[in-house]
């Protein structure tokens, strides 16, 4: 199980994938550390984090099955 991670917009240029399944991470800070190791270009990218579609600004605990989205600034319309 673990965490489901989604990448959007310009972040997919850094990751070359749009989704990771079954990532082990107990909170968003640990998840970010793992992702920044995996995809160094993410370190300098500006992005927001949503946990289960709710935007979070501070380090947030994660449990198995949670969906974490990494989203660059929106540019719809």
């Amino acid at each position: 199980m673990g965490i489901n991670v989604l990448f959007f917009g310009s972040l997919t240029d850094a990751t070359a994938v749009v989704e990771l399944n079954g990532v082990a991470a107990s909170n968003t800070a640990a998840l970010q550390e793992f992702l920044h190791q995996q995809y160094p270009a993410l370190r300098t990218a500006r992005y927001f984090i949503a946990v289960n579609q709710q935007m979070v600004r501070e380090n947030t605990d994660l449990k198995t099955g949670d969906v974490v989205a990494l989203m660059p600034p929106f540019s719809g319309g």
Partner: protein
Amino acid sequence: MKEKKTHNIFIEGPIPAQKITDDVQKHSGKTGIGAHSIFLGQVRADAKEGGAVNGIEYTAYTEMALAKMDLIRENLFAKYSLTCMHVYHSLGTVAVGEICLFVFVSSAHRKAAIDACEELVEQIKQELPIWGKEIVSGQVSYWKENQ
């Protein structure tokens, strides 16, 4: 518990221009309406390094966008006296000159329709997780940034 209906706003490809007239005509039976305020987004041929933009490719976090859109809709109906509100946004590729966003707000009076439409357009741009990639050619593209 209040049942919630999620409205889909996404259309694959450009929004057909004919939809505008068709949607206006659907409202001719709502005889309490006095004002429709409509906003359309059209893809621009902006000049970029490597050439002019040919089209925009839209992607979205659709589930989150639709949930957020429902909240925006609810808040605007609470704030303004509105009869209807309809929003359509493209996903996938939209060519230069084509319509990628169609926002349609109706009310008895002009002020509510105009103010709500303007606020709705701002919120769509700022709060919906949608991304546009400006395509110049097969090799050259730029991630769009809203002003």
